[in-house]
C-alpha cells in the first residue's frame, strides 16, 4: 500500500521526462560500467567481471523502474503551501509554506532542453528542504515560478 495524503490532486510531471531520465541513466550506465570494465579487460582476470556485471544489473533495474518513478513525482499548489512527493520504494512528501521560500530556480539540462523541459528548484532557509520538481514544460515552469514568487512575496515572513 502506498502512502496517500487525504484530498490531494497531484499534478504530475510531463511524460517526456521519462525519456530524459532514461537517456541520462543510460549515459551514466555506459560511463560507469565501461570504467569498471577496464580492470578485468586489461588484467584478464575473469573474476573481476563480477564488478561491472553487478553494476550493469543495478542500472538495468533502475532503467526498468524509471517510468514508474517518474509517474510517482507529483506536486500540488495548496492554499498556503506547496506539496511535493516523489519515490515509490522510498516515498517522500514535503510541504513548503509559500512564505518560507527564499528563491525559486529554473534549471535546464542539455537533455531536458532538447525536449523542452525545465526543472524547478525551491530553496528555503533550511538546506534539508530539497524540493526539486523536474520535467515541467518550459512555459509551465516559467508560469509556475512567477506565480510562486508572487505568492512568496505576498506572504513573506521572517526567517
Amino acid at each position, binding site marked *: 500500500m502506498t*502512502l496517500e*495524503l487525504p484530498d490531494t490532486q497531484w499534478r504530475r510531471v510531463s511524460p517526456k521526462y521519462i525519456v530524459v531520465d532514461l537517456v541520462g541513466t543510460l549515459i551514466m550506465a555506459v560511463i560507469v560500467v565501461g570504467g569498471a570494465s577496464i580492470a578485468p579487460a586489461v588484467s584478464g582476470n575473469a573474476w573481476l567481471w563480477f564488478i561491472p556485471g553487478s553494476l550493469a544489473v543495478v542500472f538495468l533495474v533502475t532503467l526498468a523502474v524509471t517510468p514508474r518513478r517518474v509517474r510517482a513525482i507529483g506536486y500540488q499548489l495548496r492554499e498556503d*503551501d506547496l506539496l511535493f512527493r516523489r519515490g515509490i520504494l522510498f516515498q517522500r*512528501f514535503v510541504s513548503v*509554506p509559500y*512564505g518560507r521560500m527564499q528563491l525559486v530556480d529554473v534549471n535546464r539540462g542539455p537533455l531536458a532542453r532538447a525536449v523542452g523541459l525545465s526543472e524547478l528548484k525551491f530553496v528555503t532557509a*533550511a538546506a*534539508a528542504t530539497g524540493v526539486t520538481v523536474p520535467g515541467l514544460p518550459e512555459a509551465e515552469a516559467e508560469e509556475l515560478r512567477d506565480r510562486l514568487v508572487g505568492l512568496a512575496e505576498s506572504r513573506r*515572513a521572517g*526567517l
Partner: protein
Amino acid sequence: MTDLPPPDAPAPAPPPTGVTAPGQDRLADGEWHRLHPATPLLRGGIAFVAILGVIIVNLRDIVIDIVFGGPDFDEDYNPVTFILEHDYLGLVVLGIIVGLLLTIGAFWLSWRMHTFRITDQLVEVRSGILFRTHRRGRLDRIQGINIVRPFLARLVGAAKLEVSVAGEDANIQLAYLGSSAADDLRREILLLASGTRQATDATAPAAASSGSLVTDRVNELLAPELDPSLAPPESVVKMHPGRLVGSLLLSVGTIIAVIAVVLVIVFSVQLEVGLVIFGLIPAAIAFGSYNFSRLTRSLRYSIASTPDGVRVGFGLLSTSNDTLPPGRIHAVQVSQPLLWRLTGWWEIKINRASSSSAQGAAGQANTTILPVGTMADVRKVLELVLPHMTGDIDLLERAIVSRGGDDGFTTSPRRAAIVRWFSWRRNGVAQTPGAVLLRRGAIWRELVIVPTARIQSVALNRGPFARRLRIAKVRVHTVAGPVSAYVGALDQDFAVEFFESVAHEAVAAGQADRSHRWRDEGAE
C-alpha cells in the same frame, strides 16, 4: 545581505571630518565612526610583535657571541658578521626604520579607512585600502549580537562586536571597539532593530567611570560581563566548577581514555616493557588540553534575560557574550549523554540562522546554550529561550523525563519495537500551541522543541522496510545546526495526520509571527 557599491560609483571618499572615534558619544547616530585606536595592534600587530620577537631571540646568541667572544664565533658565518664586515650597518638600520614606518603607516591608513555606521535600517562597514569592501546588514535580519573579548584585547580594554545576520559567513564584525562602547552599541543596535520608534530616548546613562584608566581596566577584567548601562542581568543558572569537571569526566571519551591507559599499563607490566608508558604522554597532553580548554571556556558561563533577548556569556580568559533577540532560536534540543544519567545532568543546544559565529571565545560553539545543568537549570533556560512557552514548562519537563505512556505524546506503535528496541514507548511527537515537540531515545534521551513559527518545511518519509511495518518518519526542517528535528517509527496513518497538521500550523504561525521587529507591536 552584503553588497558592493556599484562598479561605476566613485570609491567612497575618505571619511569626512565628521568622523569621530568611538567613546566620544553615541555610536548609533547614523554617522560614520572609526574603530578603537588599538585595532591595528590587536588585529595584525600581534603577529608583527611575534616576528620581531623571533628575530631578537635569534640574534641574541650572535650578539652574546660577539660581546663575550663565544667559542665558535670565528667559524660561524652569520648575517651579523656579514653586515659588520662589509660596513652595511647604516643601510640595515635605515632599512629597518623605513620598514617600520611603512608598516605603521599602513596600519594607520587601514585604521583610517575602516569605518562603520549604524542607521535605523542598516549596519554598514567600509574597509580596505586598495580593495575596498562595503558590507551592509539589515537590522531586522539580525540573528544575534556577540561581544567577544580575547584576552589581549581585554588587557587594553577593547572588544569585538559581531553582528550576525542570517546566512553563511554573513557576519559584520566591528573589531575592535572600546569595551564599554561595545556594550552601549549593542544595546542601541538592538533597540533600533527591535522596532522601537524612539530609539533616541535610550541615551546611555554614562558609565560609572571611576576616572583612573588603570582602575577601569581592572574593573573590566574582574567583571567582564558587567554592562554598565543596564542593571547587570542576573544569571539564572549558576555553573559550579565541580559539576563542570564532573561532566567532562563522565563523558564517553574519558571512560575510553581511562580504559586504554589501564590496558596499556597492564600489558606493559606483563610484557615488561616499561617504556611504552612514555608513549602515552603526548596523548595525555592532547586529551588534557582539550578538556582544559572546554573547562575554561565554560567556567564563567552565564545566561540571563534582557529586554532584547537572551544573553549567554562564556569564557574565563577570553570571554564572549552573545545576545539572541526573541524569535531567533529555530530549534532547541535537551539531551542527556548516557553517563550523565547517574548525576541527572542535561545539555541544551540550539539551531540558529547565522552560522559563522560558530567561533566564539576560545572556539566555543555558540550553539551550546547550556553546557551542563540539572533539571532545575534546564527549566530556567527553556523558559528563557522559549518565552512563548513559559506556561508549558511542566509539560516540557514531563516530556523530557517521561518513560512514555500517558504524557500527551503519541508514541511509536508496539510493532515498531523491532526498530526502536528500548525507546518505542518513549519515541514520539506532540504539538503544543506554539511548538512541535519531538522525543527520541530511552538510553540517550533527547527532546527537540521547534517553535512553529520557525519551521521552514515539513517532510514525511517512508522506506521499504518501514512500509512493511506500516510506520513512517516525520522530519521538521529548520535552519542548519546541531539539532536535527525528526522522529522515525511513527504509525503511518498518524504520521500523515501529524504531517498535515504541522504543515498547517507552520503556515498559520509564520503568518502571525512578528518577532523580526520584536518590540513593534502589531504594525508591520
